[in-house]
């Protein structure tokens, strides 16, 4: 080893020259932003489509078939490539290839930074907030369409093929939204603040994850002009292979969003492992960070399987391989196995962050330390490990490996032990507490109520004999809406009400928030609880018609669903009112939290902490005399204003 010694200069010497800011962060129109991304996508799409047609013209059976999947796929692939090129995601890798040094990272000022390839994790977090809400809003509208069709078993609003397209689009959009709904906005924004880091490990990969997520949203919606896809979100082959060109959007959309999921999980996992502040030992890491770490591990390791399955499906549709076509040496079971091998960890990708939020919010509003912290963290790790060994419970009636059913029944039911830990944590924390029922706490209580029903019905589904009746019916549908919507979405809402004051510096309106909470809680239950009964009475999923005697229950569910939709409008009204029309400045620490994220100034500076904090204890020492300080933030960071305890509006 050489003996040349240089002063440790951080990585600064990689950026010694004060260069002009990169194209992605230059003010004005003539730089890279959403507009150039759209232009890139359109040009890329046109080029790809043209290339596809040129290639296909050599293959008469494609040219004559009336559908040219090669053109559709190439159009979408180059469209996404053009999008990434336009937004500036490829500037850095291309510069690296050319041997140039990376350019400086100042962020452009003002609102236009939200339309750019930003490497600031707080900007990305807020971009994700808008992104997932847009996703959720469109998916929710499709849900309204579904419930409209199901108002009557005989009078049809949509044709049966359109109805299935709507169902499929709703499922796909919501599933892809739900994988990112917490990790994207809150994970990206809060993890560095909670672990006392100034940055993410790979900020460009983080920015990539968001912009590719948006691209995936558009790719999945491109199915509609292509004529939709009829397979539901599970995309079972060989119906998948039989479907029209919209299926390309589904397969490629999954692959694109899969890349985003892998990128997001990768970056966050590495950040949590490496960028924890001094003193932030594994036993002091906030429970939310534990949940995000477990989720990130699942995102990184399970999603490649989805990506591979999507690539195989695309190959089946474009170059006409036969991965999923039994008659040609493939197997329809192959898709089912690959899909659910991803699909079940996916379910926990959508559950764990919700538990993390609950665990983070409970101590603040109970004014007690988090009960059984280690058990909670171990539960999350346990869930994520076990989730790789349960996928065949989706295939109990498929005819695959009947001899394995007892095993998969066992593993599936075992997973309710670590899931139960989260109830131990919650109920223990509430014990002899003094609870302030502010809006975040109300949502957390609702999560405990809803997820209990979702979890208990999950045990019904995992029981093979009972599964015979409930598999593929509305019971399943009600079950996973109770876990994902009743669990994750309520947690997300709790998180938004709780952390938006930090993220935006503005308080959400409490009165509108209460209206939102109570309508959402009541109508969520009124919408989905009847579906358990509908399912038990024999209504399969994804049908446009049903037995006449079920019309009463279906109508009840539909009307409740419309009111649930209204509840979301209240939420959006609150969002727009409190953040934009008549903002109220939030106190520095409105909930009196001990969390490290609340110790920073609002708005959070680009580098988060003037001094890297030295963490002295976990952030749950509530109601404790002589409690140690959470962290030493150094001399240069006085709170901007005195903490106002209990101020909520």
């Amino acid at each position, binding site marked *: 080893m050489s003996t040349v010694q240089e002063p440790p200069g951080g990585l600064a010497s990689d950026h010694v020259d004060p260069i002009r800011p990169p194209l992605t962060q230059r003010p004005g129109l003539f730089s890279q932003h959403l507009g150039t991304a759209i232009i890139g996508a359109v040009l890329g799409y046109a080029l790809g489509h043209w290339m596809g047609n040129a290639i296909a013209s050599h293959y008469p059976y494609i040219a004559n078939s009336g559908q040219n999947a090669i053109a559709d796929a190439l159009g979408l692939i180059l469209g996404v490539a053009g999008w990434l090129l336009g937004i500036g995601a490829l500037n850095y*890798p291309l510069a690296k290839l050319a041997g140039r040094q990376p350019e400086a990272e100042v962020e452009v000022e003002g609102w236009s930074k939200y339309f750019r390839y930003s490497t600031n994790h707080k900007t990305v977090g807020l971009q994700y907030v808008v992104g997932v809400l847009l996703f959720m809003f469109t998916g929710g509208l499709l849900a309204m369409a579904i419930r409209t069709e199901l108002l009557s078993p005989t009078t049809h609003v949509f044709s049966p093929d359109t109805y299935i397209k709507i169902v499929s689009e709703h499922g796909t959009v919501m599933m892809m939204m739900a994988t990112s709904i917490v990790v994207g906005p809150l994970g990206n924004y809060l993890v560095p603040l909670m672990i006392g880091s100034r940055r993410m490990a790979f900020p460009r990969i983080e920015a990539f994850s968001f912009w590719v997520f948006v691209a995936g949203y558009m790719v999945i919606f491109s199915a509609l002009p292509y004529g939709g896809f009829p397979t539901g979100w599970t995309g079972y082959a060989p119906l998948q292979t039989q479907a029209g060109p919209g299926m390309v959007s589904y397969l490629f959309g999954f692959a694109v969003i899969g890349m985003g999921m892998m990128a997001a999980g990768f970056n966050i996992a590495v950040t949590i*492992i490496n960028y924890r502040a001094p003193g932030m030992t594994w036993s002091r890491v906030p429970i939310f960070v534990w949940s995000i770490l477990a989720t990130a591990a699942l995102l990184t390791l399970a999603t490649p399987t989805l990506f591979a399955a999507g690539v195989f499906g695309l190959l089946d549709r474009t170059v006409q391989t036969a991965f999923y076509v039994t008659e040609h*040496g493939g197997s329809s079971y192959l898709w089912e196995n690959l899909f659910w091998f991803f699909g079940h960890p996916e379910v926990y990708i959508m559950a764990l962050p919700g538990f993390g939020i609950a665990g983070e919010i409970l101590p603040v509003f109970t004014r007690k330390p988090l009960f059984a912290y280690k058990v909670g963290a171990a539960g999350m790790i346990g869930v994520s490990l076990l989730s790789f060994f349960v996928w065949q419970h989706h295939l109990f009636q498929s005819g695959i490996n009947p001899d394995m059913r007892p095993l998969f029944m066992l593993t599936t039911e075992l997973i309710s032990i670590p899931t139960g830990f989260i109830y131990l944590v919650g109920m223990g924390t509430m014990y002899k507490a003094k609870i302030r029922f502010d809006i975040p706490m109300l949502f957390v209580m609702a999560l405990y109520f809803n997820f209990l029903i979702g979890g208990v019905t999950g045990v019904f589904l995992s029981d093979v004999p009972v599964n015979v009746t409930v598999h593929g019916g509305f019971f399943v549908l009600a079950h996973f809406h109770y876990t994902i919507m009743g669990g994750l979405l309520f947690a997300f809402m709790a998180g938004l009400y709780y952390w938006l004051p930090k993220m935006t510096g503005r308080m959400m309106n409490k009165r509108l928030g209460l209206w939102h909470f109570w309508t959402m809680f009541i109508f969520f239950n009124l919408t989905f609880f009847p579906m358990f009964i509908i399912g038990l009475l024999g209504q399969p999923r994804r049908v446009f018609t049903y037995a006449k005697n079920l019309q009463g229950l279906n109508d009840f569910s539909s009307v409740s669903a419309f009111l649930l939709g209204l509840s979301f409008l209240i939420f959006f009204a609150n969002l727009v009112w409190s953040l934009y029309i008549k903002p109220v400045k939030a106190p520095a620490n409105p909930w009196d939290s001990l969390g490290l994220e609340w110790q920073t100034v609002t708005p959070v500076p680009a580098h988060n902490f003037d001094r890297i904090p030295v963490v002295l204890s976990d952030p749950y020492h509530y109601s404790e005399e002589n409690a140690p300080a959470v962290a030493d933030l150094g001399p240069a960071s006085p709170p901007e204003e005195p903490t106002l305890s209990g101020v909520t509006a």
Partner: protein
Amino acid sequence: MTKTLNQGYESTPEEAEFELRAHIGSIWSGGRLFIGMYTFLIASLVFAYFYLRSANNGLLWRPHHVTAPTHYGWVVMLATVATGLMAVVGRRRLRGGSVLDWQVAGWTGLITGVIALIVQIWELSSLPFYPGSSGYASTFIGFGVFNIMTLVVVIFWVETTLARSLRLRRELGAPGLLSTSAVAQSWRANVAAMTYFAGFAAVSGAFLFLMFYQM
């Protein structure tokens, strides 16, 4: 205190040291995690291969034991393994103190990688079977596509570390690349991660070669 232009804050030497360690650690754990991620991707292909092979639906797993052109397979596999080997050998020489040896190995590995990529693409365009004719044919196309992806990643990684080494050598001189300066440490960590991935690509390439050409 070192002022960094890009981030608008000043770090104490301790903080700079901490951030450098976090950065190096990120490259280390990121490199491992990426290999883990890629393992799941390759495993999906391996699963598809053995699943279709054992199902043998319609006796169409592999009629007449059809095989892709083996000579192309050998070239791709050997070239991939050569790239991995060059990365490993180069890194050993680098640790021994020779930047030049590493660069020569890097260039060689880059060339063999590009050869593997070109031959792999060429092979896919001149297969003696129709993609949908059998389970083997289908999984082989999947293997080809995955191989191209892997080779692109390897080539990109080798090329960028190489390009960076050339620039840093110009700026710091060859001994500078072996120094404890932050850039040099960062570069060496990157080289190490790249070596692991190139080695992984070589091993998985050889394994997939056995699966698709020799079994």
